[in-house]
C-alpha cells in the first residue's frame, strides 16, 4: 500500500496504462503542457511525448467524437473533459454516437472509450463549473458510469474502465483530488460491478457515491455518537447500479437515506428510491429519505453554496427522523 492523493492515484493509473498498452493515449484540453486543469496529468507529456498526450483545441464535441472514432479504429483513448458542465458541449457525440454505435450497428462495432471528467461543487465556482450531473449519465443505456470516491478506487476503477469494451465515463469529484489515502499500485483492476459497504451498521442504510461519501461517513460518525449504527454504501458504479447490495442492506436496516449531490427532481436518488420500493417495499419501516442539492443553479457566495449542497447535519437529521418514529 502506498499513501498518495486521489490526484496522484489517477495519474498513477494513467501512467501504468500508458506504459503497458501502446494503444492507450490521453487527449483533452490542457492535459499536456499545462499538466491538466487539476494537475492530474502533470509530467505525463514529458514521459510519454506528444503522440500519447494530446492537447486539444477547446472543441469538446470534436475531440470527444475523435475519441469515439479512434476507439473504432483500434486505439484505447482516454478523453479528459475539464468539467462535467463542459461535457454538455459533447453530449451529441456521447449520447447519439458513443452510447448507440454498438446497438445501432447490430453489434458490428463497439467503442472502447474512457472519458474522465471533474464534477461537483464546493469550490465557489458558481453555476457553470460546479454541477453534479452524474445522474444524467446514469440514465443512458450503452455506457457505464463510475464515480470513484476513494484513492484506491481512483486508481483501480480507471484500470478497470480500460478493460471494458464499451464507453466508460468516470466522474472525479473535484474536491477529492487533494484527498489522501492508500492505494495498492500492484493490485489488479478494481471490480466495478459491486457497490462497497464503507461502514457496516444495522439501524439505517446511508446510500451515496462520489463526492458525498465524506459527509455521509461524517454523518454516520455523528449517529454513532448517539448509539445509532448506520451502514454506509458507496455505490462506486452508478450505471449499472448494484441493486442487490442496496436491497440486502435495506433488508437488514429497514431504513434508507440516499445522499446525492445532484438535484432532487429526476435524480439518481429518485432511481435508487424507486428500486428500493420495487425490491424491498415490505422491508421498509419508514419512507425512503433523500438528501440532495437544493434546486438552484450553483451560487457563488460561500454561504449560499453551502446552503445548496448536501450536508452531514441533513443526513443525520433525516436518519434521526425515521429512527425516532420507528425505533
Amino acid at each position, binding site marked *: 500500500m502506498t499513501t498518495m492523493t486521489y490526484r496522484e492515484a489517477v495519474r498513477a493509473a494513467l501512467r501504468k496504462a500508458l506504459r503497458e498498452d501502446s*494503444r492507450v*493515449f490521453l487527449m483533452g484540453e490542457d492535459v499536456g503542457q499545462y499538466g491538466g486543469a487539476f494537475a492530474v496529468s502533470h509530467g505525463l507529456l514529458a514521459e510519454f511525448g506528444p*503522440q500519447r498526450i494530446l492537447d*486539444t*483545441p477547446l*472543441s469538446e*464535441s*470534436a*475531440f*470527444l*467524437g*475523435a*475519441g*469515439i*472514432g*479512434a*476507439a*473504432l*479504429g*483500434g*486505439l484505447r*483513448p482516454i478523453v479528459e473533459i475539464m468539467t462535467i458542465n463542459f461535457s454538455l458541449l459533447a453530449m*451529441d*457525440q456521447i449520447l*447519439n*454516437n458513443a452510447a448507440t*454505435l*454498438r*446497438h*445501432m*450497428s*447490430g*453489434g*458490428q*462495432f*463497439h467503442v472502447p472509450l474512457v472519458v474522465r471528467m471533474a464534477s461537483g461543487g464546493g469550490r465557489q465556482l458558481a453555476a457553470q463549473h460546479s454541477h453534479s450531473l452524474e445522474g444524467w449519465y446514469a440514465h443512458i*443505456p*450503452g*455506457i*457505464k458510469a463510475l464515480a470513484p470516491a476513494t484513492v484506491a478506487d481512483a486508481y483501480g476503477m480507471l484500470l478497470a474502465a480500460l478493460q*471494458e*469494451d*464499451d464507453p466508460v465515463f468516470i466522474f472525479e469529484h473535484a474536491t477529492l483530488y487533494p484527498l489522501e489515502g492508500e492505494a495498492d499500485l500492484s493490485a489488479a483492476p478494481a471490480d466495478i460491478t459491486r457497490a462497497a459497504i464503507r461502514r457496516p451498521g444495522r439501524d439505517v442504510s446511508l446510500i451515496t457515491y462520489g463526492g458525498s461519501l465524506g459527509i455521509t461517513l461524517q454523518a454516520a460518525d455523528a449517529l454513532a455518537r448517539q448509539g445509532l449504527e448506520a451502514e454506509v454504501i458507496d455505490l462506486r458504479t452508478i*450505471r*449499472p*447500479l448494484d*441493486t442487490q447490495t442496496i436491497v440486502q442492506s435495506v433488508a437488514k436496516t429497514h431504513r434508507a437515506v440516499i445522499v446525492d449531490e445532484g438535484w432532487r427532481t429526476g435524480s439518481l436518488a429518485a432511481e435508487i428510491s424507486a428500486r428500493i420500493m420495487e425490491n424491498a417495499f415490505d422491508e421498509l419501516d419508514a419512507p425512503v429519505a433523500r438528501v440532495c442539492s437544493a434546486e438552484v443553479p450553483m451560487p457563488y457566495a460561500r454561504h449560499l453554496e453551502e446552503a445548496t449542497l448536501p450536508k452531514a447535519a441533513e443526513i443525520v437529521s433525516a436518519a434521526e427522523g425515521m429512527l425516532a418514529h420507528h425505533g
Partner: protein
Amino acid sequence: MTDTTREAKPAGQIEKDHALFLLREMLRIRRFEEKAAEMYSLQKIRGFLHLYIGEEATGVGAMQVLSRDDAVVATYREHGHALARGIPPAALMAEMFGKVTGCSHGHGGSMHFFDAYRRFYGGYAIVGGGLPIAVGLALAEKALGKKGIVACFFGDGAVAEGEFHESLNLAALWKLPVLFFCENNLYAMGTALSRHQSQTDISKKTAAYDLASSAVDGMDVLAVEAAAGRAAAFVRGGGGPYLLELRTYRFRAHSMSDPDLYRTREEIAEWKKRDPIALFQARLREWDLLADADLARLEAKIAAEMEDAVNFAEASPLEPPENLLRDVCGAVMP
C-alpha cells in the same frame, strides 16, 4: 485552390469496361432508390427515407478512389454510399424492412447502415455528427501506422454545424488523413444554401483552417472521379486533410414526408436536364462506348438484382425480441 473545370475526357481515354462500371453503379443506386420509394409507399419501409436520386455521380465517383483499407463515414442519405462501397442491396433492403438479415440487424434502418467488413462506419443522422468520428478514425490510422485514409461524406447543411468547424480545424491541425466530401445539394432540408450561409462557396470555408480544398461539378461522374483521385492522392501523400465540394442536386424531396414547397418546379426541371446518369449515357454514346443493347442488358440485370433484394428482405426473419438488449453493451446490463 478551387477547381471547377469540367473534366472533358476525349474518347479513348476511358476504358469501356470502366465506363460501363460507373454507369452500372449509378444505375444500381437509381433503381435501388426507386424500389425503396415503392416499398415505402407499400409501407414495407417505415420511418424516414431520404433518397439519393440525382446525386449518384458524387458517391460513385468518390468511391472509385478508395481502397478496401480506407474507411467510410456517411450520413443519413447514405444508400448510394453503401451501394457504391459494395454492400449488397439485399442487406440494405432487409435493413429497411427491419429484418435481422439487414446490414445493421434491423436496429438502424434507412439512416444507419453499417458494415464492419467493408469499413463502412455508418450513416449518421445528426447533421455534422459523423465528422468528429472520421477525425478519430484518421487519428487511429496514423497512430497505428496504417495506410488507410478516411472518407467522410456530409451535406451542405453540415457546414453550419459547430462540429464541421471543430473537425476541420482538428484534422488540419494534426494533419490527419481525412478526405472530406461535401455533397452540396443546395438545401439543408428545406433551407437553401443562400438562406443559411453568408459564404455560399463551401470550398472557400477551409481557408480559415489552412485546409486544402476544391470544388467540382457533382453531376459529372468522370469529373468527380478525377477530382477525388487528386484529393485522395494529396491525403495519401501525407499532405493532411482535403475537402472536395461536390456540387449536386437532389431530384426528390428531402424525405418521403417532405411536400417540397421551398423550391420551384422550374428549378428542379432545370437541374434534371443535368441528370448525372443521362449526361453520362449521352457522353458514352457520343464516344461510342454504349450501345442500346448494352444498356438494356445492364438495366435488366439491375432490375433483377433489385427484385432479388426485395424478395430477400421480404423472406427474411425478424430478430427475436428476446435479443432486444443484446447489443446495448458487450454483456447484457442488469
